[in-house]
């Protein structure tokens, strides 16, 4: 678990309980990145001391320069590198679509601000927030109560003020006590309104452009214009024909070990060179993924370092796969996006897995997403052992009989294993739900 920097750089304001920025050069880890127009303040006793002299918390908050209830000032978004520092609510509104991945509509978005990089952001439809308030509250509390102190901004995207107020109120009440709400906004097409201070402002295109430029420089892609557009980007495109699939099946290696080597080499080369696979290789790889063992070979190449490239590869294969071969590719895409921290694209990828309900890996990824499991829990597993003689014989027999393997040959021993109840780890289960650094302890889980 990474240390929270929040407690090092901000303190609780004595009068209103809100957190304020302590942007002194000694304390603030992102001070050097602040815009030059941003004053430097530090909190001494009950007063904020900006560079030009002492000022009390109330008057500082009224300038809107710094955090206080309803006055979001210097905000550090630490999930990008270098950390993005934005000033004011205009910047926050401009940043939000990048956090979501698309421009939200009729939705409530909860965005962490401050210095803890491990805090997830959430989105829910306003309808869901209003109709399932208890379930929604349970989800938000369960995840955000894992952390010590949090600062969050809550934004409701709707033109309807009454609807926005209700959704913001429900969401604010749903957040646990360790969360300080720094800003609460209704965002409409033309303007934003901070509902605590009643401040309003236009959707500033100049600020949006500046934030966009900063994020593009950090490698973030432009948000999709809508959730539908994001979903469509995973839809079928240039689906491989049966003829191509049949030809590719005939090219598979008669040795299972050889096919495993081919899968590993092909995936790693495609990711390293950032090239799309040609139709024959794409068809062969998709058919290999139908074998759980070969899918695990592909899975074993997936690390944080290459997750973004892998996500692009598996997304492309998801789009080109016929429905019967789509689930493994979509699941690997979802896992890749989860590793990059992109929960939204991971969820959309799973939506394109036709066999989601029965495909175990997909259900596991779905569970991780559902509970906002931080991806840095995942550690790379060792390479899989070489196939057993039994597995190799089964593979060779299938290739000889059909020209290609038609069933998961690596599952020869798996079927037996699947009937065995999984044994609980020998270590004691953690009392709290803090993710252990580095995942399950070595030697506790099953031997890969």
């Amino acid at each position: 678990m990474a240390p929270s920097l929040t407690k090092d750089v901000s303190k609780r304001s004595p009068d209103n309980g809100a957190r304020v920025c302590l942007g002194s050069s000694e304390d603030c880890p992102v001070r050097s990145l602040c815009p030059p127009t941003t004053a430097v303040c530090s909190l001494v006793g009950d007063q904020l001391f900006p560079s030009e002299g002492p000022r009390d918390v109330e008057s500082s908050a009224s300038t809107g320069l710094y955090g206080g209830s309803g006055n979001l000032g210097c905000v550090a978004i630490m999930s990008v590198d270098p950390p993005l520092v934005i000033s004011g609510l205009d910047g926050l509104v401009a940043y939000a679509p990048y956090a979501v991945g698309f421009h939200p509509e009729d939705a409530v978005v909860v965005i962490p601000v401050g210095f803890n990089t491990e805090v997830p952001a959430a989105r829910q439809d306003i309808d869901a927030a209003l109709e399932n308030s208890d379930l929604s509250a349970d989800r938000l509390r369960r995840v955000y109560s894992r952390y010590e102190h949090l600062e969050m901004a809550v934004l409701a995207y709707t033109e309807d003020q009454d609807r926005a107020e209700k959704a913001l109120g429900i969401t604010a009440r749903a957040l646990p006590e360790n969360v300080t709400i720094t800003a609460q906004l209704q965002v409409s097409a033309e303007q934003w309104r901070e509902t605590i201070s009643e401040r309003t402002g236009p959707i500033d295109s100049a600020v949006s452009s500046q934030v966009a430029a900063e994020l593009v420089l950090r490698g973030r892609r432009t948000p999709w214009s809508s959730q539908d557009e994001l979903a469509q980007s995973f839809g079928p495109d240039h689906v491989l024909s049966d003829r191509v699939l049949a030809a590719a099946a005939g090219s598979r290696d008669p040795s299972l070990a050889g096919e495993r080597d081919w899968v590993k080499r092909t995936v790693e080369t495609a990711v390293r060179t950032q090239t799309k696979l040609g139709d024959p290789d794409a068809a062969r790889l998709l058919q290999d993924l139908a074998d759980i063992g070969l899918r695990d070979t592909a899975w074993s190449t997936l690390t944080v370092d290459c997750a973004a490239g892998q996500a692009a590869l598996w997304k492309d294969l998801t789009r080109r796969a016929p429905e019967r071969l789509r689930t493994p590719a979509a699941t690997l895409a979802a896992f890749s996006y989860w590793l990059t921290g992109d929960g939204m694209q991971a969820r959309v990828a799973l939506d394109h897995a036709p066999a989601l309900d029965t495909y175990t890996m997909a259900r596991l990824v779905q569970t991780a997403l559902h509970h906002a499991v931080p991806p840095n829990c995942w550690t790379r597993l060792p390479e899989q052992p070489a196939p057993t003689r039994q597995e190799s014989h089964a593979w060779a027999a299938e290739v000889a009989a059909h020209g290609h393997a038609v069933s998961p040959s690596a599952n020869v021993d798996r079927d037996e294993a699947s009937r065995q109840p999984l044994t609980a780890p020998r270590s004691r289960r953690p009392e709290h739900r803090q993710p252990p650094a580095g995942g399950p302890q070595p030697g506790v889980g099953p031997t890969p």
Partner: protein
Amino acid sequence: MTDPSIAFPASPREQYFNQLLWHLGVVGRPSETGIIRCDSTVVDWIRLTQPDLARRPDGGAHG
């Protein structure tokens, strides 16, 4: 809420993943409950941590 129709994780990697989730307390004891069904998607966790990007300004990695 559990879904008994879901097969227990079978491949080593699936088993590892399930163990990880069990350690984190988001699924029940595997031998008793299988994988917990995700009831409905009320909340989307849109942005999780980005371990490769989460670095201090001085370049040091978190955690």
